[in-house]
């Protein structure tokens, strides 16, 4: 287990190193500069370049950037009056994290419920409805949901605020839009697992012992079927990250995703790089966490290399 852990952490570091390097060099070759206001004279641009270290050779800039990144300094935003990127992002972590957790929670709970019901009522209309909901939820992009809900529920019916972030009710529509993906993935996965478990010998034994339907489905089947669901949490978190970019933009939620999109449009390199690194770090961390969690919850899983 320890060897496995060390190995995984090393991979994590290599991955992050690759991401940081890649973002740096890609940003160097993108067209456009941060100082393209027509009011600036060449001289002023030169001064600004020197100020931000953009006049040095690329390898030097790279080393500087690496050293700073390791120390947790992601540079300064070009757009927002020299605000440090770390500060800019930390202000925005709150709404994103809140939305992400809420969507994840709502999504997995509803998804697991749908999956279990579908498995218990296999090949009935309940099952077909649940499967259909899952396919539709997985297929339709979250920004379509977000857009349609914003129009029909917020604008037409006026049940919820249309956009912005000024209270709990502002988080409801974005959460629903984001949770469609977790719902469908969790439902499909749960259904397969549950059917698998329901066909296993210990369920037959429980039935033979005369355990009640409720006891069998909850105590024996559900508890065992829940274990592998941990493995889909990783992909779900990634899906939420992708979804958050557009959903936050649609509902004007002041989160990381919205920041990322607006930075792309304004060529604000340090913020783009900082956000990318943050996303990558989150992703790598979640994957590792899920793997470890899985090993702890289910002792039957033998981790590779942990003989």
């Amino acid at each position, binding site marked *: 287990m320890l060897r496995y852990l060390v190995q995984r952490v090393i991979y994590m570091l*290599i991955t992050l190193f*690759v991401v940081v390097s890649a973002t740096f060099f890609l940003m160097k070759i993108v067209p456009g500069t941060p100082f393209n206001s027509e009011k600036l004279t060449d001289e002023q641009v030169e001064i600004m370049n020197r100020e931000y270290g953009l006049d040095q050779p690329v390898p030097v800039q790279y080393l500087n950037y690496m050293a700073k990144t390791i120390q947790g300094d992601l540079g300064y935003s070009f757009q927002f009056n020299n605000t440090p990127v770390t500060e800019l992002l930390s202000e925005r972590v709150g709404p994103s994290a809140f939305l992400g957790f809420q969507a994840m929670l709502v999504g997995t709970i509803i998804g697991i419920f749908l999956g279990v019901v579908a498995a218990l009522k296999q090949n009935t209309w309940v099952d077909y409805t649940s499967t259909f909901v899952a396919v539709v939820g997985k297929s339709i992009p979250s920004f379509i949901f977000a857009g349609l809900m914003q129009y029909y529920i917020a604008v037409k019916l006026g049940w919820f605020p249309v956009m912005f972030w000024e209270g709990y009710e502002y988080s409801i529509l974005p959460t629903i839009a984001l949770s469609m993906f977790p719902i469908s993935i969790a439902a499909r996965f749960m259904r397969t697992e549950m059917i698998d478990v329901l066909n296993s010998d210990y369920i037959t034994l429980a039935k033979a012992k005369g355990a009640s339907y409720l006891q069998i489905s909850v105590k024996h089947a559900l508890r065992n079927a829940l274990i592998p669901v941990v493995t889909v949490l990783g992909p779900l978190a990634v899906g939420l990250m992708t979804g958050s970019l*557009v959903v936050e933009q649609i509902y004007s939620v002041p989160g990381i995703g919205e920041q990322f999109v607006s930075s*792309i449009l304004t060529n604000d390199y340090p913020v783009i790089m900082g956000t990318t690194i943050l996303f990558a770090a989150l992703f790598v961390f979640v994957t590792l966490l899920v793997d470890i969690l899985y090993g702890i919850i289910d002792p039957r899983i033998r981790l590779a290399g942990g003989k």
Partner: protein
Amino acid sequence: MADKDMKLTRDMFEPVSVNTTKSEKIEKPSLNFWQDSWLRVRKNKAAIVSMVILVLIVLMAFIGPLMSPYEYDKQNASHSNLPPRVQGLEDISWLPFDGTLEKKDGTIVHPYEDRNIENYYWFGTDSLGRDLFARIWQGTQISLLIAVVAALLDMLIGVTFGAVSGYFGGRIDNLMQRIIEVLMGIPNLIIVVLMILVLPPGIIPIIIALSITGWVGMARVVRAQVLKLKEQEFVLAARTLGESTPKILFKHIIPNMFGVIIINTMFSIPNAIFFEAFLSFIGLGLPEKEASLGTLVEAGFRSMLAFPYQMIIPAIMISLTMVVFNMIADGLRDALDPKMRD
């Protein structure tokens, strides 16, 4: 039951003569892999319906732009933002094709009559007066093109990478697997966005950006299959007979995993459609003149409040396409997956 009273007499039975020549006879014609799979796909009604819809969508993607009397990129300022109106359906008020538009305050306006326009725009027009019917199908065509080409590229790279890695094993495999592991560690959203930032906007850059990350899943699946298949006797036989390595790989091993490859490709098509639309949505899509489902949804979204039809029609189109592809992929997986065959 009445049957109980029935008397069983001896003459009701006769001994069966075992004909040894007939017992070996094969009753049904033997099916090859594809026929067998087709039998199973056919049972999945959702998949069949989806296939029919998909065929219609693909046909319309090519015929649609020609059916409309207007060009997809022809601007006409005096015909801007017209709601959908269809000949014959315009008098049915509950259908959204009557050429009227409900304003935000609830009043109904008749832009066609108000502006003295005789034309019929089946799906309406956008803010530059371009015919949305032609644009939708043109956009479907472009989106499908991007998705299919990206999926094929994924397949090509993934199969080659996976097959080489799995077949040769040892140090090559080790190195290739490490590369995959690092690539898997990076969220593909980030790679796609960064690639698009660097490359000039256009169809080919989007395809490249999608393929850069897309092949990894395929490579992993193919490698696992190759590892399994290369131990089989027919590979040993081919090797003993002196067959060259590429031939063994491409003639003996890969044909045996067509099922897995097809399933994976089918799943990567809707994924590519999604990413194309996603990129348009965050402002990194195709240039404005071009139409793809993504750019249409994005443009529609901006004018959603005043002209909801501009958002809703492309949204339905992209959702339908994605659902249909996913349904077919699911059906194929159930039918082709070797794990389900037992």
